[in-house]
């Protein structure tokens, strides 16, 4: 019998993997993909709990999370393209113009 806890544990594992990726990888696009992984883990939690509580609010929130993720993808990738055009690299170790 698959309960809500099973889905939430899978979501926790994906979220922890995404956290590890965001903190350790150096390529900015891979960091962005790990952020999307974290967002999807949270989406799974929302839908599982929405099913358990018999409510539509969780699924509407997932809808808006997907919208915001799409907008963030567009703007973030445009930012990376501009940065690559100026610095010819996309490693986050080299993005250090604001360090004192």
């Amino acid at each position: 019998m698959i309960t809500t806890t099973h889905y939430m544990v899978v979501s926790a594992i994906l979220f922890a993997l995404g956290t590890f990726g965001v903190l350790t990888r150096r390529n900015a696009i891979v960091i962005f993909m790990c952020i999307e992984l974290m967002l999807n883990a949270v989406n799974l939690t929302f839908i599982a709990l929405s099913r358990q509580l018999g409510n539509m609010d969780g699924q509407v929130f997932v809808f808006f999370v997907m919208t915001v993720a799409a907008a963030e993808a567009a703007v973030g990738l445009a930012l990376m393209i501009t940065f690559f055009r100026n610095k010819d690299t996309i490693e986050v170790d080299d993005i250090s113009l604001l360090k004192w």
Partner: protein
Amino acid sequence: MEVIFFYLVALIAVLSGLLVVTCKSPVNSALALVNTFFCLAVFYVMLHAPFMAAIQIMVYAGAIMVLILFVIMLLNLGVEPLKKYTHTVWGIIAGSLVFILTFLFITRGQTSKVAGAITNEVVMREGHTELIGKAIFVDFLLPFELASILLLVAIVGAVILAKREV
């Protein structure tokens, strides 16, 4: 039977997530992420939310991942140089800490015993799309309009950021 299917799809999702985090080439990470999105869409169907599964594949796997792959190909990055990770030990500590804390409050916490009105039978009878449509256009109309303005702002911002001469 459903249990075996769930564990299989969960295993594939977690392995794909692991591949996203550990692949050398960004294209391999992107393909593993598409695989994760498909596994999550299967989970949404198992949770009686077929509209969200279709939207997940259309928006995430169909639009966002295509955009990411376009940018990877456009920048012509190639394979990553030698050092793929920075501060690996701190990353592992932070990731395992996040997982342990989340696991503790998943297994120890209790959700409220309120059983809402929208059960699986209601979803199957009335159609999931209609239920989400009712929720978005009646209860959540203002966030819906704000989301459309957000998308407009994102489009304008992305075009201005990526132009050659402003």
